[in-house]
């Protein structure tokens, strides 16, 4: 490569909002309903049906806008985006073109060169489309409209990002803001957060933008990083060989690590937007805005600051725990039940992270309750179970959220605190292992480890190793 190039990236991020019902009708948004069970005349575009805006959608959109430093459009409305495609029963998508709910915002990301602001061009409210399934048997398409009308916000960034790393940081930042607000669970794999990448390259120092392409079908952070790398190289290769980049939409195939142009929807990208006459305009009052502002929960940066002040735990722990809203909630709830912050943090940073990694789960999928974690910590504090048993109980708790106190009781895992019984076992072990006893007495300190092990085994693991050690030394 003779010239130096710069990559310019802007993102369109779609986020499915965590409402109970669709954006314009009272159909459920729950996952897993049988095909077309969550449909009605409104979300299937029957003539004469009347859409009515779900107030919660507006609240979430405004909340995200405020958290992303946007200007809130005080008088906004909905427009129809017209296109024919089987996923869209109305033949138009209700969206916002002329007066989107939020404009001109920014979020800050960390880069190796320090903090960087990524501009947000706009955020608008719109509805999702139905799901298309390919029928392999008869080579046709099957359509399920359960997702049709599920509320989305689309967050359009400025072309402010220059690398895959910056894109990932930006997405993680958005995800955390939105998860903290409770506006969406933002799962890329499940499609509740989707990103389209607009990318162009230009020679370093150039101020005009190159021709950009749009990439779709990116459903993991890793796929996004690979797609950016792939598309950047493809465009540079074109320019280097004297060819031109064609403005088009490309679909990323993560398995093949390559992208290919999508067949355009009847080659006419002419959406003929016009105001939706079925939906009345939305006027946002000062009172409404204040109400949302007052309800804004503590976001991550504030939470991290508070943790530093309130809890004596390492900075690294704070970063990991607040990196998931769900984990932070569990942490705080467990502490409020009386558990020591450091102990709670240790369980989260140790066994929890280990099991999450082993089972390839997200922190958002943690199922055990704060009450049960607090219960387990109490058991270890009272020395009612030793650390090996505690880890074993935690493993079961992680899977099934059992009550550790009851479980320990039922399975008879409690440490034997009866000093007499423990002493008798130690005496038996000493009598049964004359060789080790001899070794120890001859100065082989390590031999005591074997005797501790034998005692623990005889006690079925239900002894406090400290007490066993003490008794052995006393009796030898």
């Amino acid at each position, binding site marked *: 490569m003779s010239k130096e190039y710069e990559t310019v990236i802007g993102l369109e991020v779609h986020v499915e909002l965590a409402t109970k*019902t669709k954006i314009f009708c009272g159909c459920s948004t729950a996952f897993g309903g049988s*095909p077309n069970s*969550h449909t009605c005349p409104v979300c299937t575009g029957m003539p004469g049906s009347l859409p009515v805006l*779900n107030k919660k959608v507006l609240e979430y959109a405004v909340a995200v806008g405020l958290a992303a430093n946007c200007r809130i459009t005080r008088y906004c*409305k909905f427009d129809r985006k017209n296109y024919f495609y089987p996923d869209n029963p109305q033949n138009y998508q209700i969206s916002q073109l002329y007066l989107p709910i939020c404009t001109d915002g920014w979020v800050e990301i960390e880069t190796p060169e320090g903090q960087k602001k990524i501009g947000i061009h706009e955020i608008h409210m719109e509805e999702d489309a139905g799901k298309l399934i390919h029928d392999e048997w008869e080579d046709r398409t099957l359509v399920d409209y359960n997702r049709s009308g599920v509320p989305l916000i689309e967050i359009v960034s400025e072309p402010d990002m220059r690398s895959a790393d910056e894109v990932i940081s930006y997405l993680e930042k958005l995800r955390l803001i939105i998860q903290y607000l409770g506006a969406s669970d933002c799962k890329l794999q499940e499609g509740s957060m989707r990103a389209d990448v607009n990318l162009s390259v230009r020679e370093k120092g150039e101020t005009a933008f190159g021709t950009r392409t749009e990439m779709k079908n990116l459903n993991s952070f890793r796929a996004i990083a690979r797609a950016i790398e792939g598309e950047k190289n493809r465009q540079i290769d074109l320019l280097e060989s004297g060819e031109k980049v064609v403005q088009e939409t490309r679909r990323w195939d993560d398995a093949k690590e390559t992208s290919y142009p999508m067949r355009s929807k009847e080659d006419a990208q002419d959406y003929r937007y016009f105001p939706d006459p079925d939906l009345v305009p*939305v006027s946002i009052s000062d009172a409404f805005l204040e109400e949302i502002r007052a309800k804004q929960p503590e976001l991550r940066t504030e939470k991290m600051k508070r943790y530093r002040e309130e809890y004596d735990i390492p900075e690294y722990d704070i970063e990991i725990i607040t990196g998931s809203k769900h984990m932070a909630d569990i942490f705080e709830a467990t502490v409020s039940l009386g558990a020591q912050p450091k102990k709670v943090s240790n369980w989260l940073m140790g066994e929890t992270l280990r099991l999450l990694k082993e089972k390839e789960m997200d922190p958002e999928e943690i199922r055990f309750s704060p009450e049960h974690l607090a219960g387990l910590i109490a058991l270890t504090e009272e020395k009612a179970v030793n650390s090996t048993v505690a880890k074993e109980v935690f493993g079961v708790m992680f899977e099934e959220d059992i009550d550790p106190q009851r479980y320990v009781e039922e399975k008879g895992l409690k440490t034997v605190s009866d000093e007499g019984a423990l002493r008798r076992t130690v005496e038996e072990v000493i009598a049964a292992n004359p060789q080790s006893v001899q070794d120890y007495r001859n100065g082989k300190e390590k031999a005591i480890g074997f005797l501790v092990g034998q005692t623990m085994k005889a006690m079925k693991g239900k002894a406090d190793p400290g007490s066993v050690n003490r008794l052995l030394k006393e009796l030898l």
Partner: protein
Amino acid sequence: MAHTITDETIDYVAILAKLELSDAEREQAKKDMGRMLDYIDKLNELDTLSVEPMSHVFPVQNVFREDEVTNGDGSADTLKNAPEEKDSMFAVPRTFD
């Protein structure tokens, strides 16, 4: 008629509207659309500089619903509109991206 609709335009509109027109229908549509544009010209003679663009015919705003599920299983009614059905889904000709 001041406006003449070209063959190119009518073909493009037909693609957008998913219509297949016979030759006679094409000629009629060209004439009709030309007259519609003439009428728009007439409207454009009005001075609307001081008039706010209207986005809705009624002076109504802020009509909301609460986020509560009010609809049950609508699949039976919805699927009545399916030309063909399989596994409770609409079966349509194969689509591409």
